[in-house]
């Protein structure tokens, strides 16, 4: 009886035939997920950093725009944004491939969170650091670049890593607009095979992808926790 249940479990989640048949598809999904995740992380983090730097100039209308953007993208569920952009943009004549929509939305969401994290980091650098650098004749941008940002960015590594992991996992949302990432490949395979094994393969693929990232994040966290004066 127990043996029977066990073999049904294996048959449902670890069916060897299914694994063999759909392995290439899942691997294709892995590649797509990695591509989108990498694009999102690079562009989202950079855009967030640029926005935080722009904010240090304290131009009031500009900062108001940044705050509105940041709050909107932090408040809305990413799925809502994905659907809104994917089905909304064609109505105004813009047709983006689903890959681009997913990238755009997630990059903007990451940028919004990253901006807040970088901004908090910049604000947490004591005023004395600015004053010391300025008193040696270093300009505003020089002070920002050599004194403030290197310290601020170290402080932002742990929260930014966590946020980045959380947002890149949202690449799975691509499945609802037909991006051929891991989950999309897995659900397609699942409906063709009538077996849950591809979903399990997808889950394992996510783990293989993300566990190293999580561990790397933890490593960075300890590496960057340097002695403060």
């Amino acid at each position: 009886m127990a043996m029977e249940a066990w073999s049904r479990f294996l048959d449902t989640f670890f069916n060897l035939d299914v694994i063999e048949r759909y392995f290439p598809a899942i691997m294709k999904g892995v590649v797509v997920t990695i591509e989108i995740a990498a694009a999102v992380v690079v562009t989202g983090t950079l855009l967030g950093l640029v926005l935080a730097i722009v904010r240090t100039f304290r131009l009031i209308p500009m900062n108001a725009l940044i705050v509105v953007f940041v709050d909107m993208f932090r408040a809305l569920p990413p799925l809502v944004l994905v659907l809104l952009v994917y089905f909304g943009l064609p109505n105004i004549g813009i047709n983006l491939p689903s890959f681009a929509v997913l990238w755009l939305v997630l990059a903007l969401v990451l940028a919004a969170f990253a901006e807040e994290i970088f901004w908090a980091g910049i604000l947490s650098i004591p005023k004395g650091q600015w004053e010391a650098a300025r008193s040696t004749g270093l300009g505003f941008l020089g002070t920002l670049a050599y004194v403030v940002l290197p310290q601020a960015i170290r402080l932002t590594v742990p929260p930014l890593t966590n946020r980045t992991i959380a947002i890149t996992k949202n690449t799975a949302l691509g499945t609802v607009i037909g991006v051929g990432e891991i989950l999309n490949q897995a659900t397609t395979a699942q409906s063709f095979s009538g077996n849950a094994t591809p979903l399990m393969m997808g889950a394992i693929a996510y783990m293989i992808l993300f566990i190293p990232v999580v561990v790397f994040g933890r490593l960075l966290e300890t590496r960057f926790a340097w002695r403060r004066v």
Partner: protein
Amino acid sequence: MTTGTPPILEIRGLRKKFHDVEILRGIDLLVLPQELVFVIGPSGAGKSTLLRCCNRLEEPSAGSVQVGGVDITARSTDINAMRRQIGMVFQSFNLYPHMTALRNVTLALVKVLRKPRAEAERLGMAALDRVGLANKARSYPGELSGGQQQRVAIARALALEPKVMLFDEPTSALDPELVGSVLNVMRELKRGGMTMLVVSHEMRFARDAADRVIFMDHGLIVEEGPPQRIFSTPSEARTRAFIAELGR
């Protein structure tokens, strides 16, 4: 002040308001080449504000500040070019914690004076040597004692060869046993001919190193004179009360 030497620092009618409250109410002060002028006064007198107006970390509300004959408050003045000629040392050191002592000292040499890295390091090492910390060049601020950090901060200002150095309570964040090392460095600077404007309450140091002592209260210079006179026989009642308080 009867000599014909032009002053290094010339403050005229300096006023500073914060939100309609006047913190400096008309300061006139000349600091001559190689002079060490000491500023004392109760908390809130405006001593830090006075120093910070001298390199425009605070924007003066009225009056002028000239350094080496250049009005730093003038619109046309390149303030960054002036600031490197005005060294500043802070109560809280404000070393860059992510850089070694040497990098702290060479940053402005490289990025402001555009010295090649090798020359900057040579000058940086020379400055660290003057404060007795050449052996700590590779240490990070977090690995140094408060006194050592403050000496690195002095070296950072010194390396730019300023015309005048401003010290805002350079020893008041230090444990008593570390104060001496910083004061010794300042004595050395004085001996080397550095012009200095120092806010501090180290009376013993003032007595043997200062040329003049300024007593400030409520945004005004109440009285000034040689340290012996100010500390022993001040003419103003407010000065007398303050000195008595200090001596306790």
